C-alpha cells in the first residue's frame, strides 16, 4: 500500500525486534471469538488512474451540476477567488490538528481570531466563536443557549425559518425541556407576524430568519423592541451570508444571538457540505457561548500570540456540564471564509451584495411580467423571491431542466405541500443576464 512507508520486509524486521513472528500476533490481546476470520468484503484496491475514472463517471451522472442554476434555499452559487482554494490546500493548514499546542499552531489560531473578528464585523456583534458545523446546528445551539441565559423554556420560531433548520432544532431540543412555538407568516407581505399574546414571560427567545426562507427581509428592529420588552432574546438566522454586504446588520437591529450559514463565503455547494456555521453574540453572554474561542495571549517576552481560551465552558473540561458537546468544528471551512472575506474585502463584499440584489430585481421584473405568473409577497427581498406559477411547480421545473437546460429554482412543495405552484428563485452575481432571460423564456414555455 503506497501510503504506508515501511515496506513489508521492514515490517517483518520490526516484528522480529519485538519478538513476534507475524502481524497477526499484534492482536493477541483480542479474544479469538471477536477476530474477523475472513477478508473484508470491500473492493480490491484501485490505482490512481482507475480511481479517478470511477469518480469521474459518477460525477458525470450529476447532470444538475452542469446547468445554469437558480437554486438557493440555504446553499448558494457564488464566485470564489482562486486564491481561496489554493491557500486552504497548503499542508500547513489542511493537515494540521486543532491548535492545542499554541507555539506551533499560531497560523491556525491567528486565522481563527481573524475569522471571529470578521464575523463580529458583519453581524454587528461583540463575540463570535471559531465556528459550528453549519447554519442549522448553529441555530439549534442558539436555542439551547437562550434557555441557559434566560432560564426560560419556550422558544418561538418563525414559520419563515428554513424548514431543515427547524427540523434540526427540533431534534436538538427534544430532550432539553424546551418547547418550540410557531410564529405565522403574513401571506401578503411574506414577513413573520409577531403575535403579542404569544410573548409572555415564559419565552426564552424569538427566532427569525432574515432574509427569510421566502427571501423577504424582516423588520428586525421592530422585533427586537418587543422581544426585549418581554425579557426574551432575539435570535437572528441568516442563510445567505452575502446579504451582510448590503443589509443592516442584525446586531445594529438589536439581535442578541446571530447565527448564519457561511457557505456563501468561498465554499462550494458540494451537495450540502462541508459548510460552516457562524455564531456570534453580545459580550455579556461570552461565557455561555458553545464551541471554541481563540483569544490574545502573551509570552514571557511580551510577544503577542493566540490561544484557545475560556475552555472551562467546553466538554473536555466540563464533561456533561459543558455548554455544548461540540469538539471538532469546521476549521478549514472557516479559514476558506476568512480568506474569502479578506480577498473580497470591504468593497468586494458590498459589490457582491449589490450585484445579487440588482440581478434579483431584474429577474423579478422579467418573471413578474410573464402572463400567468405572479409574485405573491410584497416585502423587500435581497436575492431570493417566490414566484407563483400558473401550474404545478415540480413538473414545470422538470420540463424547464429537460427542455431548456436551466435549473429554475426550488419547488416549495418539497417542504410545504400547501404551496404546489410556488417556486423559490435565487439569483447571484454568477447568473448572467442571458441566463436570467433564458429562465424567464423557459418558464413561459414550460408553464403548460
Amino acid at each position: 500500500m503506497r501510503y504506508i512507508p515501511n515496506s513489508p520486509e521492514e515490517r517483518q524486521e520490526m516484528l522480529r525486534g519485538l519478538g513476534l513472528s507475524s502481524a497477526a500476533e499484534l492482536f493477541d490481546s483480542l479474544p479469538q471469538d471477536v477476530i474477523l476470520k475472513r477478508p473484508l468484503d470491500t473492493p480490491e484496491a484501485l490505482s490512481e488512474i482507475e480511481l479517478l475514472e470511477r469518480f469521474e463517471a459518477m460525477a458525470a451522472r450529476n447532470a444538475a451540476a452542469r446547468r445554469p442554476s437558480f437554486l438557493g434555499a440555504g446553499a448558494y452559487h457564488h464566485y470564489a477567488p482562486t486564491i481561496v482554494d489554493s491557500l486552504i490546500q497548503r499542508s500547513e493548514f489542511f493537515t494540521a490538528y486543532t491548535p492545542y499546542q499554541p507555539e506551533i499552531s499560531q497560523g491556525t489560531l491567528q486565522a481563527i481570531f481573524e475569522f471571529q473578528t470578521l464575523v463580529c464585523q458583519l453581524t454587528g456583534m461583540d463575540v463570535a466563536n471559531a465556528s459550528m458545523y453549519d447554519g442549522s446546528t448553529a441555530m439549534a445551539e442558539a436555542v439551547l443557549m437562550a434557555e441557559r441565559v434566560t432560564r426560560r423554556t419556550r422558544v418561538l420560531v418563525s414559520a419563515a425559518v428554513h424548514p431543515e433548520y427547524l427540523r434540526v432544532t427540533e431534534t436538538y431540543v427534544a430532550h432539553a425541556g424546551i418547547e418550540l412555538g410557531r410564529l405565522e407568516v403574513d401571506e401578503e407581505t411574506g414577513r413573520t407576524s409577531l403575535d403579542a399574546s404569544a410573548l409572555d414571560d415564559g419565552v426564552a427567545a424569538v427566532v427569525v430568519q432574515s432574509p427569510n426562507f421566502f427571501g423577504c427581509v424582516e423588520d428586525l428592529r421592530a422585533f427586537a423592541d418587543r422581544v426585549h420588552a418581554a425579557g426574551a432574546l432575539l435570535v437572528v438566522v441568516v442563510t445567505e451570508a452575502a446579504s451582510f454586504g448590503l443589509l443592516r446588520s442584525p446586531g445594529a437591529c438589536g439581535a442578541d444571538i446571530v447565527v448564519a450559514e457561511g457557505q456563501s463565503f468561498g465554499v462550494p455547494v458540494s451537495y450540502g457540505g462541508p459548510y460552516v456555521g457562524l455564531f456570534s453574540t453580545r459580550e455579556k453572554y461570552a461565557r455561555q457561548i458553545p464551541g471554541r474561542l481563540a483569544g490574545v495571549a502573551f509570552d514571557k517576552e511580551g510577544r503577542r500570540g493566540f490561544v484557545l481560551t475560556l475552555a472551562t465552558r467546553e466538554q473536555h473540561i466540563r464533561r456533561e456540564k459543558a455548554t455544548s458537546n461540540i469538539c471538532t468544528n469546521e476549521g478549514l471551512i472557516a479559514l476558506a471564509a476568512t480568506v474569502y472575506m479578506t480577498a473580497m474585502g470591504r468593497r468586494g463584499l458590498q459589490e457582491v451584495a449589490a450585484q445579487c440584489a440588482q440581478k434579483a430585481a431584474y429577474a423579478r421584473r422579467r418573471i413578474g411580467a410573464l402572463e400567468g405568473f405572479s409574485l405573491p409577497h410584497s416585502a423587500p427581498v435581497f436575492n431570493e423571491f417566490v414566484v407563483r406559477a400558473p401550474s404545478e411547480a415540480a413538473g414545470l421545473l422538470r420540463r424547464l431542466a429537460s427542455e431548456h437546460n436551466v435549473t429554475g429554482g426550488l419547488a416549495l412543495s418539497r417542504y410545504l405541500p400547501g404551496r404546489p405552484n410556488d417556486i423559490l428563485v435565487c439569483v447571484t452575481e454568477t447568473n448572467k443576464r442571458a441566463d436570467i432571460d433564458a429562465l424567464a423564456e423557459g418558464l413561459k414555455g414550460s408553464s403548460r
Partner: protein
Amino acid sequence: MSITKATTHVTQNEALVFERSQAGRRGYRLPALDVEETAIDDLLPAELRREDDLEGVPELSEPDVVRHFTRISTWNYNIDLGLYPLGSCTMKYNSRLNERVARIPGFAGLHPLAPEEDAQGALEVMYELQQHLAEITGLPGVSLQPAAGAHGEMTGVMMIRAFLDARDGVTSDEAKRRKVMLIPDSAHGTNPASAHLSGFTVKTIRSTPEGLTDLDHLRELCASGAVAGLMLTNPNTCGIFERNIKEICRVIHEAGGLVYMDGANMNALVGVARPGDMGVDVIHLNLHKTFSTPHGGGGPGSGPCCCTAELEPFLPVPRVVRSDAEGGGATYGLDSERPQSVGRVKAFYGNFGMHLRALAYILTHGRDGLREATEAAVLNARFIAHGLADTFDRPFDSPPMHECLFTDKRQTRKGVHTLDIAKRLIDYGFHPMTIYFPLIVQGAMLIEPTESVGRAELQQFVDAMKEIAREAVEDADTVLGAPHTTRIGRLDEAAAARKPVLRWRPAEKAAGA
C-alpha cells in the same frame, strides 16, 4: 549558547489582516453589472440597509492576502512535515488524490436541492460508502449525516433513547424512562456531554488497575436499575483492547440497555475485528481519523453512525436508499418516510465532501490495504512502546494497540512534568503527543504514531524522548523553559482567560472598550 530570535523578520511578525489594511486596496474584480440598475431606495428602504459602510473590514490587494496567509501558515506544524503523534486523533497521511476527487466539478458544483434524478452520482457515492462502512463495522444500518464525532455520538445516543422509549412503551411518563447512561472514567469528554444533550443522566464506571472497564462495578451499576446503555471506546483511551467486550455487552443487554461504541480508535481494528461481532449496537466513526479525511486545523469532520438492523428505523432522515430496476440498473434516492427516526441532525445530508474522500481512501487501499494499514499502525505504536519502556513509566502492562500510554512519574522528581516534555519535543522537531488524557492517569502522555510514518522517523522520536528524559535529570531548566526554537514562547493562557480579548478592534476604540 543562547539564541537571539530574529524578531524583526517580516515572516515572523505578520500582523493581523486588519492591521495590514490600506484604504483603497482591492483584491478582486467582478464583471460589470449586466442588467439595468434599479435605484437603491427602490430595492430596499434605507432603514433595512447597512449604515456602517463595513468599516473595519480589510482592504488588501491579492498579493497582500496570499502573503498574509502563507506567512502565518508557516507557524503551523502539520502532518506533511512529520510525525504528529496525538493519541486518539489518528493523524495519518491525507492523500492529495482524495483532495482532487472532492474537487471534481460534478461533485463540488452540485447543489444539495438538485432533483434526485440529476444527482445520481452523488447519491451513489453516499450509498456505496454506507455499504463499505457497514461491512467494516459489522453493523448494517448507516447514516452519513453527522458532521463530526461528537455529532455522531449525539445521534447514536438519541437513537438509543428513541429505541428504548418505543420498546418500553414510554411516551410521556418521565418516571418510567430509563435514564442512566454508563460511561467509563477514561472516556472522552464529548461522551458525557452528548449523553446529557440527549436527556441522559451520566454514571461513571471505574477502571481496573489494568486500565480496563471494571466488570464488577458495571454489574453493580446495572443492578441498581434504569440503565439505558453504555458508551464505550474500544480500544479504550488507554490504548488497550477491552478483552471482556462480549461480556460487557451481555451484561448491558441483560439489564435492558444498549451499547454505544465511540469509534475514535477504529484505526486499531479495521479489517481485524468488527464492533457488530462484539455485541455493539451503535457506533460512530470519525472519517477524519480512521479514513484520513484531513483534520483541517479543527474540522470539517464527519461522524457517520452505524447500527444494528434493530436500531435502523431510528437513524436520522433522510436516508440514502437504492432501488434496483428489473433487468438491471439501479437508482438512488432520499427517503424521509421513517416515522421512528430521531429526525434530522443537520441540514442536507452531511459533509458530503468528506464522504468522497473517505470512499476514495477505502477504494485506494482495497480490502487488503485496509487491514495492512491497521497492522502497520499497531506495529508502529508497539515499536514506540518498546523503545520507551525502560525510560518512561507505563501505567498499564497490557500490550498497546494503535497508541501507547506513558506518564511523567519518573521525571517529576526533578520538577519536569508532562507539559514540559511535550513542549521540549517541539524543539526536536516533533508535534507533542496528547497530554493529560485520559484523565484517570496522572501526567498522561498518549502517543499514536499511525501507519503513516517510517521506521527511521519512529526511531528519531524514541531517541528524542530518551534525550528529553536525560535532560530532565541533568539539565531540567532546558526542559522547563521549552520550547526554545519557536517564534513565540509559552503563552500565558491563564491571563488570556481572565481578561479575554476575543476579537480585534480599531486602536481608538480599544482604549475605551
